[in-house]
């Protein structure tokens, strides 16, 4: 495996740069020794210089490489530092600035894969040598490449019409670019539309949300697709083809004025499990709430008397504009977009899973979402906080925190919003009923602007706080004073004793969970999610709204529990990321692509069925296969499959991988001159 330099001088001139990363690498790896070893033992492989430096990624470190490229005429560069996912671009740019093709640089990881995971300094140093040796062998096989430039379609798809999605859509539309906002419910608004007040300011949720809903719908750049779901996504960054199913509304939106007569006249009452959290009713033809956007209702086919029994048609009879259309069918539309923002939100933890808390069994145990509806002046009780019987005002209320969160049996994570939500409930109960309120908490987490002040306020209002995890909620009275009450059994960890506290109403401040179909969504859009189902960010700190899939961004609770301010920030941030893409008009992509050498292709067609992107086409006339570079995503499956070795893949070619194997196993060392003893 000899490597001829383009000028025919025999060998590449390779520079090896070993990073200390402060003490991150140098604390576990003898970096100076490794650099010396590379200079000496890999000299025969073309290493002309090997240096170590405190921080290779610093501008001084990069200048070091650039200077060597120019002064020593390096033709290849190997940097041993952190993961290529962090700094590959940095060093490629440094090389490019010095006039070396950026793809002739290889970054090998001796931090994430060596110094941070090993404990034996000698072994870590030896492994670093092997890793560098692998990088050197690999880089010899690199070829100069040019990035692929992909045009960016100016339209964007936003999936999810909650506050995060609305914000993202607004930012993009106001910047003058087309947006498709897809929402699977009949109206946008998301969970926020269900709330009464928002912590810590106690703004009315509807008052601050509905103007946003209206302006997003009114913006001419926004195509609002409610009662719709994305069914298929094809393509890649800059040019996605998205298929959207517009579910049949059975209402002609061109004719409907949103007058609401159909809802009045519909004889069929249905328990509203989604918007009213099961506490209230809606009709079979409905808009989820009066301020719904769009204003057009939908007919709930499984519950509609006409669809089920063939008679009724009351809505059709009374509609003044003849907008009811029972013949509508689901419609599939296809749109072209350059980027996608996913803001699909969360599901509430189902407290039925914690049977000892009694939800679903004891009538007066409520979930947080149920209480939101109960306290909402537009809700089923007009904002009267009453027990399940609909009339009795509670005199004592217990609010249980961390339901389904911070619990090894359910979810380990903290759901972020439940402490503040519990405090908000405490305030509302106190304000509206004057009841005695207990908060059962593990720790109070009120870490955001004005949150702790709100906690202080609730404390001053006289709400009682009991620190301890609730063991159970029961109606089995032991004392006469407990008769007819719900008894909260709790270990008061501050008082150091077990307590039984009788209350009239229990509110479970339930945690947030990924959407039940989060994994399907992840698969549909090609993003990754954790085993819980939360979407994984490109970088949890520095790139929280991007995903590892180019062109697909995330905002709001799809990546984990968030409060409203954080969701709004993320919606705007994701839009900003998309806007910068659109403004650049094109994006440079890694030139990782497969190609066929037609002179070697035997026409066996083994590769033809392997490509999920339909990039491989077969020319019957010439009996050869060709790969369409615009469709190829660079996975390399066809490269691995070709029995003739006719397909090769850039960036991860056979020669590169095989050479890296040799290097990692230190087979290259015997290339060293036999006069090893001679000083080098």
């Amino acid at each position, binding site marked *: 495996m000899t490597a001829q330099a383009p000028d025919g001088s025999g060998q590449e001139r390779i520079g090896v740069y070993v990073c200390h990363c402060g003490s991150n690498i140098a604390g576990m790896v003898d970096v100076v020794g490794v650099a010396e070893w590379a200079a000496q033992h890999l000299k025969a492989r073309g290493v002309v210089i090997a240096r170590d430096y405190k921080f290779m990624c610093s501008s001084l470190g990069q200048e070091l490489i650039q200077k060597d490229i120019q002064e020593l005429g390096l033709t290849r560069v190997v940097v041993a530092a952190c993961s290529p996912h962090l700094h590959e671009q940095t060093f490629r740019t440094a090389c490019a600035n010095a006039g070396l093709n950026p793809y002739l640089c290889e970054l090998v990881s001796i931090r994430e894969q060596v110094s941070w995971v090993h404990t034996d300094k000698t072994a870590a140093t030896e492994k670093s040598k092997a890793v560098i040796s692998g990088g050197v062998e690999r880089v010899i096989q690199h070829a100069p490449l040019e990035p692929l430039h992909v045009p960016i379609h100016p339209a964007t798809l936003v999936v999810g019409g909650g506050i995060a999605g609305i914000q993202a859509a607004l930012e993009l539309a106001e910047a003058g670019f087309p947006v498709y906002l897809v929402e699977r419910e009949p109206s946008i608004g998301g969970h926020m539309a269900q709330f009464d007040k928002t912590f810590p300011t106690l703004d009315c949720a509807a008052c601050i949300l509905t103007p946003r809903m209206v302006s997003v719908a009114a913006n001419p750049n926004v195509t609002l697709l409610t009662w719709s779901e994305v069914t298929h996504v094809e393509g890649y960054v800059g040019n996605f083809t998205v298929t959207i199913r517009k579910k049949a509304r059975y209402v002609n939106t061109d004719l409907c004025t949103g007058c609401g007569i159909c809802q009045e006249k519909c004889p069929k009452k249905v328990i509203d499990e989604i918007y009213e959290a099961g506490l209230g009713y809606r009709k079979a033809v409905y808009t989820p709430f009066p301020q719904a956007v769009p204003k057009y209702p939908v007919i709930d086919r499984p519950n509609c008397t006409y669809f089920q029994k063939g008679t009724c048609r009351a809505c059709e009879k009374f509609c003044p504009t003849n907008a009811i259309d029972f013949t509508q069918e689901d419609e599939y539309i296809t749109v072209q977009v350059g980027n996608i923002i996913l803001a699909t939100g969360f599901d509430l933890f189902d407290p039925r899973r914690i049977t000892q808390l009694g939800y679903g069994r004891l009538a007066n145990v409520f979930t947080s979402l149920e209480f939101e509806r109960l306290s909402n002046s537009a809700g089923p009780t007009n904002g009267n906080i009453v027990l399940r019987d609909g009339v009795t005002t509670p005199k004592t209320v217990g609010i249980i925190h961390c339901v389904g969160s911070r619990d090894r049996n359910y979810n380990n994570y903290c759901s972020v919003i439940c402490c503040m939500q519990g405090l908000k409930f405490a305030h509302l109960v106190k304000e509206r009923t004057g009841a005695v309120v207990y908060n059962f908490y593990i720790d109070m987490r009120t870490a955001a602007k004005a949150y702790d002040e709100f906690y202080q306020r609730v404390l001053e209002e006289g709400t009682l706080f009991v620190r301890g995890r609730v063991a159970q909620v029961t109606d089995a009275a032991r004392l006469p004073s407990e008769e007819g009450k719900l008894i909260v059994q709790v270990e008061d960890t501050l008082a150091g004793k077990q307590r039984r506290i009788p209350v009239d109403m229990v509110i479970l401040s339930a945690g947030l969970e990924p959407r039940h179909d989060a994994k399907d969504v992840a698969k549909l859009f090609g993003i990754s999610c954790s085993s819980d189902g939360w979407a994984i960010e490109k970088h949890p700190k520095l790139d929280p709204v991007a995903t590892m899939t180019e062109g697909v961004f995330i905002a709001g609770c799809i990546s984990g529990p968030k409060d409203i301010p954080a969701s709004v920030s993320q919606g705007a941030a994701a839009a900003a990321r998309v806007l910068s893409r659109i403004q650049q008009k094109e994006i440079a992509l890694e030139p990782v692509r497969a190609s066929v050498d037609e002179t070697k292709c035997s026409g066996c067609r083994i590769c033809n069925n392997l490509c999920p992107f339909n990039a491989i086409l077969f020319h019957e006339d010439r009996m050869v296969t060709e790969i369409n570079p615009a469709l190829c995503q660079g996975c390399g499956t066809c490269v691995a499959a070709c029995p003739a070795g006719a397909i090769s893949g850039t960036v991860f070619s056979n020669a590169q991988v095989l050479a890296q194997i040799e290097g990692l*196993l230190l087979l290259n060392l015997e290339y060293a001159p036999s006069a090893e003893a001679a000083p080098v």
Partner: protein
Amino acid sequence: MPDAFEPVIIGFTCNWCSYRAADLAGTARVKYPPNVRLIRLMCSGRLDPTFVLKALSSGADGVLITGCHPGECHYIEQNYKALRRYLLLHRVLEQMGIEPQRVKLVWASAAEGVRLAQEITTMIEEVRALGPLRWPTAAQNKGRQPVMAAQEAVR
């Protein structure tokens, strides 16, 4: 022979899941033995069985193949193709007289740094128990040093 046998394992990782899991293991400072050396591919589907044979014949005592969980492939379904090749390769290895446990396939998502570290540790111990492979290498035929000697020479 060194007094204690330290196996060398070549690990193939997918750019989208297991390589990031390895990164995550690093960031979280999860420890595993240094006997594994990783190679990044774009997808487990890129894994040409030749790579495995090359690694074993060049001195590796084991090969770890990692990819995204079934259904989570970044390239839709290519990890299933890796699985097919892996199962076939196992039969070939057996016929060649190589313990199939020396080549292992593990699924690891980008979030499973701890799991990947555990799988690496387990595999190292399994291969350690099997002992050195000592494949009569093409390298030796050409007069090259086998990896073991080369590694001693490094020190």
